[in-house]
């Protein structure tokens, strides 16, 4: 597999796996917004999603592969880049690069840790079994996801972890979106500033969308 050893080939893998995760994140956000319509809405969404076994078991291996490739090549490429630039300048002036771009590896590590925590909390539901949706059911006998989410985010420490992680996501995506378009060769000098600007906008919208959930719960607007 020379493609997976080559400089550009590995970047293409980073771009495609990142895009797969971006599409998932958008779908995830759209699904999550059902919480604003109340407990019935979120619980029926969660139940219907679980009934689509074929969809779930198709996307799960794809997501696992995407995460693995993205993490593996992300670390490998970054390690090579550090090695290629061992000495730093006495004075360094950045002209075009952004904080988001330069901190990709660190926001990436943060998000990796967050994903593990998030899965333990809401997928495996081991962080607080007392409020687990697998054990608590709503009036229709469905797993009470709404109750679990609201009870979780009512603890401000947990909500802050989520808000912080979603800020990291905004930074990661604001470089990532424009970067995958460039890596996949879809840019010219006219589209580049467009994708840089609107990539950041999309990143901020996604992040703000996720953040709105713990904020609304902390503010006591959503009660459960």
């Amino acid at each position, binding site marked *: 597999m020379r493609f997976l050893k*080559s400089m550009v080939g590995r970047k293409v893998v980073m771009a495609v796996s990142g895009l797969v995760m971006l599409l998932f994140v958008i779908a995830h956000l759209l699904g999550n917004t059902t919480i604003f319509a109340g407990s019935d809405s979120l619980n029926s969404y969660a139940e219907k999603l679980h009934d689509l076994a074929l969809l779930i078991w198709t996307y799960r291996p794809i997501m696992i592969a995407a995460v693995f490739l993205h993490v593996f090549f992300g670390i490998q490429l970054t390690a090579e880049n550090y090695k290629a*630039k061992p000495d730093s300048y*006495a004075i360094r*002036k950045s002209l075009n690069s952004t904080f988001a771009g330069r901190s990709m590896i660190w926001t990436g590590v943060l998000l990796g840790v967050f994903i593990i925590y998030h899965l333990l909390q809401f997928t495996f539901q081991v962080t607080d079994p007392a409020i687990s949706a697998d054990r608590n059911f709503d009036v229709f006998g469905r797993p009470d996801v709404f109750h679990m989410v609201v009870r979780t985010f009512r603890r401000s420490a947990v909500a802050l972890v989520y808000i912080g992680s979603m800020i990291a996501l905004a930074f990661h995506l604001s470089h990532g979106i424009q970067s995958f378009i460039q890596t996949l060769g879809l840019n010219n000098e006219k589209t580049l500033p467009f994708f840089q600007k609107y990539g950041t906008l999309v990143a901020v919208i996604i992040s703000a969308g996720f953040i709105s959930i713990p904020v609304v719960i902390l503010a006591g607007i959503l009660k459960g």
Partner: protein
Amino acid sequence: MNLTLYIWRQKGPDETGKMERHDARDVSRDMSFLEMLDVVNEGLVKNGKEPVAFDHDCREGICGMCSLVVNGVPHGRKEKTTVCQLHMRHFKDGDAIYIEPWRARAFPVIKDLIVDRSAMERIMYSGGYISVHTGGVPDGNAVLISKEDAETAMDAAECIGCGACIAACPNGSAMLFTAAKVSHLATLPQGRIEAAVRVCAMTEAMAGQGFGNCSNHYECEAVCPKGISVKFIAKLNREFMRAAFIKWKRERND
């Protein structure tokens, strides 16, 4: 005007270097940056000290030899200008100026501000050419090229191979340089024939020479004295994917 210079001094490739303070007195606004250094060096020689070693050749912004990082920016802050064409009128009396060599693993320091840039040459050897028969000169316009393609190829061919892109890159990547060469040749019919082989060979050589990977920061474009656009990096990426696809199809057919 009077300036305080902090210059990287390093006796040889294996020595450790350090920033050294030098004072430049009575600098004329009309001097180029390199002429200012010439005057400093004359002073050093007069006092029996070792002059500062730096690369230069044409001093008119076209050869790509001069290579100084001035206050953290390769070729200095003035856009699309080599450091030999940077004039002292862009500085103020009393300024402190930090002068450092290109820094990247692939660019070992030879002495003071001079680095070994032959790694870039080795990328060129790997594919930065077209294979043609020697013999009579072909007629002009025997191969027709659209104006658009000719312009694109010329934009890429403007690269003078100075290495500022690599010096500015946080990853020490030679992507803009390689992309300019790949795009220049791939845009023209004579270079199109070997385009797939070339892009693979040149990116492989780049990695082999110890350059880093591109992560789309675009620092390179900002410091390029010829204003080479990062759109050529997108083109290199396209060329690479096309080459990989051609190779995959060929292997499947065999």
